[in-house]
């Protein structure tokens, strides 16, 4: 290539550049296009996400840029919450429509199978006889050696027993017992004192004297026959029998 040709190309290039620059400035005068629509968002959550049948869960949702929001087809506020009590596992759908389109969100509430008792045929409670109720409510009371005073716990137990005895209209035999030590005859007398102590307490709690009968078994009817304090304590007692 010769020198004169290369000079021409440079000049043309500069011109072109100038022309381009001037042409751009002229286009600013055209009308602006409409702004693109903002995107639609939607969230949905459940709390708690798993329940037992009969319990409830709270659904909470929120949307942005939506004009039409529906939860499972029902129109709802753009944001809000709702309590649900599904009976089985359910997926909730939130639909949010807006200019920019439609957004969906889902939340599942799973329902655990209730630990339902195996269906028993006719769950009839076992009949409680008077004897069973008596044994439950009127228990032995215990004494110190050679004593016939009621201990505080025995006082209390007898006051409670008295209520049931009155309510049921029971007749009761109070049986005084002693441990193996000491004389046969004196222990009969001591057993009478023990039986009488319980009788007085029951009467004080309102049981009629006619409903109460005492007997002493002395040391003749031990419920334990070892010769030690454990056993002796078990035998120093008033036992109560329901009279029929």
């Amino acid at each position: 290539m010769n020198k004169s040709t290369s000079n021409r190309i440079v000049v043309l290039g500069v011109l072109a550049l100038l022309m381009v620059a001037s042409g751009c400035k002229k286009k600013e005068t055209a009308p602006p296009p409409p702004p693109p629509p903002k995107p639609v968002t939607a969230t949905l959550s459940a709390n708690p996400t798993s329940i037992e049948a009969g319990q409830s869960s709270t659904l909470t949702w929120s949307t942005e840029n939506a004009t039409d929001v529906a939860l499972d087809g029902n129109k709802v506020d753009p944001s809000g919450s709702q309590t649900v009590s599904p009976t089985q596992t359910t997926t909730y759908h939130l639909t949010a429509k807006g200019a920019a389109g439609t957004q969906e969100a889902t939340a599942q509430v799973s329902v655990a199978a209730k630990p339902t008792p195996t269906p028993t045929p006719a769950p009839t409670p076992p009949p409680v006889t008077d004897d069973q109720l008596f044994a439950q409510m009127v228990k032995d009371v215990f004494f110190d050696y050679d004593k016939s005073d009621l201990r505080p716990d025995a006082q209390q137990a007898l006051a409670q027993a008295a209520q049931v005895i009155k309510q049921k209209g029971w007749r009761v035999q109070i049986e005084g017992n002693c441990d193996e030590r000491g004389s046969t005859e004196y222990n009969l007398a001591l057993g009478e004192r023990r039986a009488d102590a319980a009788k007085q307490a029951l009467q004080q709690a309102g049981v009629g004297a006619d409903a109460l009968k005492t007997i002493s078994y002395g040391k003749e009817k031990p419920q334990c026959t070892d010769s030690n304090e454990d056993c002796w304590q078990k035998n120093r007692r008033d036992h109560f029998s329901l009279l029929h």
Partner: protein
Amino acid sequence: MVKANRLGKGRTLGFITLMLCGFLSAAAQDRIKIELNMGQERPRLAAPDFKAANGDPQTAPLNTVFNQTLWNDLDNAGIFDMVAKSFYPSQMPGQPSELNAKAWGDPPPNAGVITFGNLGVTSGKVDVQGWLYDVKNPGAPQILGKQYKEDATPDNARLIAHRFADEIIARLGSGIPGIAESQIYFVSTRSGNKEIWSMDYDGANQKQITKLGTIALSPRISPDGSRLAFSGLTRDSWQIMMYSMDLGRTVAFPRIAGDNFSPAWASDGTKIAFSSTMHSGLSEIFIADANGAGARRLSTGKGDVSPVFNPKTNGQIAWVSGRTGLPQIYVMDADGSNVQRMTDQGYAVSPAWSPNGLLLAFAWVRNYGPGVLGGSDIYLMDIASRQIIQLTHDGGRNDFPSWSPDGRHIVFQSNRTGNEQIWSVLADGTHLQQLTRQGRNSQPNWSFK
């Protein structure tokens, strides 16, 4: 061996107190010895085996039974100094003509009196001849000569020995009849539940009397031996029951409200004392006619039981009361007046009044307290002076003393062998004997005669 103690209340200076105690202790022992009719001068008695009178096959075995029984009766009587058999001369007399009095009267036997005789069985009858001779009186040596004839059974051999022994004892023992034919009534479990049984005074011949099927306690034979009072458990209460020894069955006795137990006879047989809850729901002492009628309350304690009449007068009753806490022995007049407390410590129960009215036997845990539970012994109290001596020392729980008719023996229950059995002892603490071994046996009651 026999301890004497004093329950005095007075306080004096130490030296004088010591002197006084020593004096009273010795005096108490002597006084009680005299009251037991066991004087210092005991006849020295030789009792060689009776001779077999013939060769009948039954003679030898019955003679063995007879000889054992007679020896035991005389030895148990507590009024003889028995000459040991090892001192006897080789020749045993079977009848007076065979007796060499000098050989028995000189040392070593040194006997004062001798009993001897013979036994033979003929045609199914046992025939016994027995004599009692004063060895030291050659002029008129015979004190006693007796003959007995019964069907030839071991029981009859024993019975004859008892009768002959009682003759000897009555003759040599201040005129107080012997006890060899007396009975002891007691409670035994050997049938499966507690029933009343009887036995001879030496433990032989044990027989069941009641068949109540529940619980029978506290046997008390009437003074004439015809009726046995006891406490029996019915469906809903304790009742005094009466067994006729003549009819061999329980006879009617009034049913009384509440619990009724521990009967006791007046020695004239006209009254019964017992413990009853009929009045207050607590045990109190009542007295009634022997047929149960006309019950009157004598005591007003809480927990009164085990009455016993003074058999000499029937004017007093001793009994047990827990009115101040642990049970103590009390005495009152038979109309309920003049109550006196006889013991002042420990756990005192089961009074038994001696036939002469002077002594009380009772069971006592004397030093009752933590750590010394369970040791109950038999004690004797001289009522007038309140002196006390301890009769048993051998451990275990000893309870329910009862006096023999002659006042020289006491029968009681003891668990010293591990379970309750009946024992007898001379009232001076010697000649301890176990009478029962089968089942558990308790509450002995010695007949009045």
